[in-house]
C-alpha cells in the first residue's frame, strides 16, 4: 500500500516538508523566532534548554535536537547558536549534514549580535527554503510509516473506545509492515506482565519489565521526599473526574492503544529503531505529553495518534497530531480540536474494527496531504525536550528485588 511522501537522502520518508530553524540553546530563541517570522513555511523550534546541563540530561538535549534536525518531516535546517553553550551548534549542524540534508549554521556571538544574525539568517533561510520548495512527494510504502501513540487528558471512555480504535489502526499499520510506538511507562504499571507476553523474545520481555520497573522506582523515589507529600497522586484531577480511579486502571485502558502486535524492541528516548526493524516498539520514557511525544517523534514517528477523553488542543511543530476521543460530550463541546470521533463504539455499539479501519484511512490521508485540526490551529506546544536529573540507573537485579519481593 502506498502514500505520497518525501524520500530523504538517508532513505527515510517524511509526510511533511519543513525548513526547521533550531536554536542549540534557549538564548537563541527570539532570534530564531524573528528569522522564522520572515520566512513563510519555516518552523521555529523554541525550547528552554541547552545551558548548564550535564551528563544524561545534556545528552537527551543533544540527542533530541539532532533527532529533530534529521527527522524525515524536515527538508532542511538552519541552526542558530549563541556560542558559549554546552551543546555545540556545529555538532547539530554536522549531524544534519551527515544525514544528507541542506543545512546552515549561525552563531550569535560570531555574527555580532541579534540584528546581524537575523539579517544573515533570513538570507540563508530563504535559500534553504528554495531547496525545500523544490522537493517533491513520491509514492512511498506504508511500511515506512511510524505512528506514535499517546493519551492525554484520559477519562474512562479512553480505555473503552479511543484507545482500542487507535490500537486497531496501529495493528493495521503493522500488518502493512509499518511501525507503532507505545510509551508513557509510568502509566503502564500493572500491564508489564501482559506486555512481556507480547515481546518477541525473552530478552525484549526483560527490557520491557526492567524499563517499567525503573520508571516505577523513579516515581517511588520522588514520593520518598516529604516535600512532595501533598503531590503524590499518580494520575491527574481530570483523570479522576473522568472516572479513572487508579494508575493501574488508567494503564489497563491506555495499553489498548498499542493494539495486539508483538513488541519488537524497547527504544531509548528519541532513538531510531535499528535499520530494517519494523513493528510495535516501546519507548522508555514517562508521560509528560510534550516530552514523550517529542521523544517518539525523535524515534522517527512521522504522525502522532493522540487520544483524549477530556479534550486537548496541542500540536507538534514537526509532525501532524491526530486527536481522537471516545467521549461524545467532549467531542461536541471541543469539535474544533478533534479529528476523529470514536464515541460511537460506546453510544452505538459500533465495532472497534470498523472505526479502526476509518482511522487507518485518515492516517493515510494525513500522510498524503490532509492537515489535522492541531496543524490548522498552529499548535506547537508538544515540542518539549525530555529531561533526566540525577537519577542513577539501578542494576536490574536490584530493581526486581524492589518490585517482586
Amino acid at each position, binding site marked *: 500500500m502506498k502514500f505520497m511522501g518525501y524520500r530523504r537522502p538517508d532513505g527515510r520518508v517524511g509526510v511533511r516538508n519543513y525548513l526547521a530553524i533550531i536554536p542549540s540553546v534557549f538564548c537563541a530563541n527570539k532570534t530564531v523566532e524573528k528569522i522564522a517570522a520572515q520566512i513563510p513555511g519555516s518552523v521555529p523550534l523554541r525550547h528552554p534548554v541547552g545551558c548548564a546541563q550535564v551528563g544524561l540530561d545534556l545528552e537527551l538535549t543533544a540527542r533530541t535536537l539532532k533527532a529533530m534536525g534529521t527527522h524525515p518531516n524536515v527538508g532542511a535546517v538552519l541552526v542558530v547558536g549563541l556560542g558559549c553553550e554546552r551543546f555545540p551548534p556545529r555538532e547539530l549542524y554536522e549531524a544534519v549534514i551527515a544525514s544528507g540534508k541542506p543545512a546552515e549554521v549561525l552563531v550569535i556571538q560570531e555574527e555580532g549580535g541579534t540584528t546581524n544574525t537575523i539579517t544573515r539568517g533570513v538570507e540563508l533561510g530563504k535559500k534553504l527554503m528554495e531547496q525545500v520548495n523544490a522537493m517533491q512527494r513520491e509514492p512511498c510504502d506504508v511500511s515506512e510509516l511510524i505512528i506514535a501513540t499517546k493519551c492525554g487528558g484520559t*477519562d*474512562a*471512555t479512553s*480505555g*473503552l473506545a479511543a484507545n482500542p480504535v487507535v490500537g486497531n489502526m496501529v495493528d493495521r499499520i503493522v500488518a502493512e509492515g509499518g511501525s507503532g510506538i507505545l510509551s508513557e511507562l*509510568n502509566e503502564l*504499571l*500493572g500491564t508489564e506482565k501482559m506486555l512481556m507476553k507480547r515481546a518477541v523474545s525473552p530478552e525484549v520481555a526483560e527490557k520491557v519489565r526492567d524499563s517499567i520497573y525503573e520508571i*516505577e522506582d523513579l*516515581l*517511588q523515589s520522588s*514520593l520518598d521526599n516529604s516535600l512532595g507529600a501533598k503531590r*503524590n497522586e*499518580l494520575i491527574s484531577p481530570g483523570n*479522576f473526574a*473522568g*472516572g479513572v*480511579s*487508579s*494508575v*493501574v*486502571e488508567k494503564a*489497563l*485502558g491506555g495499553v489498548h492503544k498499542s493494539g495486539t502486535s508483538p513488541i519488537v524492541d524497547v527504544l531509548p528516548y528519541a532513538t531510531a529503531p535499528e535499520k530494517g526493524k519494523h513493528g510495535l516498539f516501546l519507548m522508555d520514557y514517562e508521560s509528560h505529553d510534550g516530552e514523550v511525544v517529542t521523544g517518539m517523534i525523535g524515534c522517527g514517528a512521522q504522525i502522532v495518534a493522540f487520544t483524549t*477523553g477530556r479534550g486537548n488542543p496541542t500540536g507538534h511543530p514537526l509532525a501532524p497530531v491526530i486527536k481522537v476521543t471516545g*467521549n461524545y*460530550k467532549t467531542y461536541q463541546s471541543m469539535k474544533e480540536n478533534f479529528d476523529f470521533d470514536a464515541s460511537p463504539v*460506546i*453510544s452505538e455499539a459500533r465495532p472497534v474494527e470498523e472505526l479502526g479501519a476509518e482511522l487507518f484511512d485518515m492516517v493515510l490521508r494525513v500522510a498524503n496531504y490532509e492537515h489535522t485540526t492541531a496543524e490548522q490551529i498552529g499548535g506547537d506546544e508538544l515540542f518539549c525536550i525530555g529531561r533526566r536529573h540525577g537519577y542513577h540507573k539501578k542494576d536490574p537485579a536490584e530493581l526486581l528485588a*524492589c*518490585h*517482586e*519481593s
Partner: protein
Amino acid sequence: MLRKSMMIDPRDSVAMVLEDSQKGDVIRTPRGEITLLEDVEFAHKVAVEPLKKGQPVIKYQEEIGYMLEDAPAGTWIHNHNMGCDRGKVRGAKI
C-alpha cells in the same frame, strides 16, 4: 429509571454507567439488575457485587485497586473507597 451501562467483562466486579445517573436508578448488567445507592456520573464505576475491605476490584479482568472499606452492590467505586499502591509503595502488588 433504567440507565445505560456496560461491563467490560462479565466476570469483573464493577460496571460503568454510560449516562449521568441518580441514586435509585437501575442498571441492567450480565450479573443482574443493580440499583444505584448514590448518584454516579457518566463513565464512573458501580460495584455489581458486595465488595469487602481489602478485596481487589476487578475491571478488564485485572486488579485495578483494592477496597478501602466494605461496599454493597450498587456502590459508586472510585478513589474515595478504592486504593492502589503501585508506584507509591515499594513492592506493592496492587
